[in-house]
């Protein structure tokens, strides 16, 4: 049976999504460990062997989650890729699109 997702918005705009079916298979739960480092926010806890929230999603979105990105980066190195930490920048995307349409190259794409 699918475990579904854990998802909450973040204060600056964007969201964090945990694919709990992937997280179930993860042996390290590195995201929870990273979030519970002494100097970080501790919004995550283990909940039936998958990441869960210590607070309501609304509280996390009001700034309970400090957007340190530790969960996502820990998942990259020690997990199996169950996390999406989306921080959209539609104005920048649109700017880059227009820039490339003009034949200009953003600095990070120079060859």
């Amino acid at each position: 049976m699918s475990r579904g997702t854990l998802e909450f918005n973040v204060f600056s705009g964007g969201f964090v999504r945990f694919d709990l079916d992937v997280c179930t298979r993860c042996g390290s739960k590195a995201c929870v460990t990273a979030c519970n480092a002494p100097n970080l926010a501790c919004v995550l806890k283990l909940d039936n062997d998958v990441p869960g929230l210590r607070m309501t999603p609304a509280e996390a979105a009001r700034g309970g989650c400090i957007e340190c990105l530790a969960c996502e980066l820990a998942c990259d190195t020690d997990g199996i890729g169950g996390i999406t930490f989306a921080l959209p920048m539609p104005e920048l995307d649109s700017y880059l699109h227009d820039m490339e349409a003009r034949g200009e190259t953003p600095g990070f794409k120079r060859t």
Partner: protein
Amino acid sequence: MAKLLEFQAKRLLRSSGISIPKGRTASSPHAAAEVAGELGGAVALKAQIAAGKRGKAGAILFAATPQDAADKAGQLLGRNVLGHTVEDILVEEKLDILQEHYLAVMSNPETQTPTVIFALQGGIDVEEHAASGGVGIATFNVDLTDGFRTYHALELLGRAGVTGRALPALAQMAVRLFEVYRKYDCMLAEINPVALTARGPVAADARINLDDDALFRHPELGVEEAGEVGERSRTPLETIAAGIDAHDHRGSAHFVQIDPDGSLAASEGKISIGFDGVGTGVSLTTLDELVPRGFLPRNFCDTSGNPTASKLYRITRVILAQPEIEGYVFVSCLSSQQLDNTARGIVKAFKEIYPGGQPNIPCVFCFRGAWDETALEMFEQHGISKSPLVRLLGRDATERDVAVAFGELHSGWRASRMEAAQ
């Protein structure tokens, strides 16, 4: 400061009972001719840009007929004037001016009061006239508990040397200008020139700068944030960066493009680079080391005050979007800022925009302060420091070390590019 355009400023003046010339804006030659036809007679066509000295820059033209107005509008629209592209022009009746004065209310940092300034001689070069100790200039520092009343205005104008029939009308204009200044939380409300005409004093030109911190109190003005940096309009990237801070109060990401199009670097024979510093002091001392070595930052950025990692992620993407930069330098002061968060934001940005997180340009990262070792470890854990174009420096490094390391990386990078090109 948020600067209103002339037509916006005049709208506020008119709503407070100050006389302004008849007219309206046009964004095409056809529309300009239409307005000129409605007004009848000669008209002035004024480029609507957030810059002073438009007359001297040829951004104010006069036309005798609607066809002439269309022709002159065609000359102005789309033109670059003082770094601004002209998108709108204000078409107004041409005034028959008997005399020109200067009137302003400004927030005076020296007296910490609003100061009303009146000068008998208005128009262009009023600043030079004032600086040369010109006669006929008077000021009045306003006690906000008293306000600025008609008798204050009469006293001010009398000291400036105004006499005769114009005196009461000018006093009324000064009191109304002060009302505008107060009502809209201005830093500056200026009429220059105050045109004395047969129908009384008219605000021939107007400039209003608003206090950024009070913009939220004036949603009716539709100004969400300051639209300019110094004397020029914000660049698109500056607008995007300002949005990052506007939506998140945690820490700062102040981003300004020093050399938006790279022309300064080109003219100085310098190499354009992206830059981010934690603290403005360390940024300046680092730039003191970078600039003599031939590097010029395309941008200045200060990410201090303990910003979130997400803020660093976003601003790093903005910095690295700048075209033609040949490097990126990040340096922190010995800060109490949680540098591991700072590093996570940069690491996420690098991993997303560069394949494998490996940059295409030389990059130096200097982390000094709270959790600096954790910050440096991030770059190793995520493979970014494996790149030959990346150099990590820690708390023992000086600003000179940063510049020297960057110079070495850049020399190697440039040499390998030249080799590849041959």
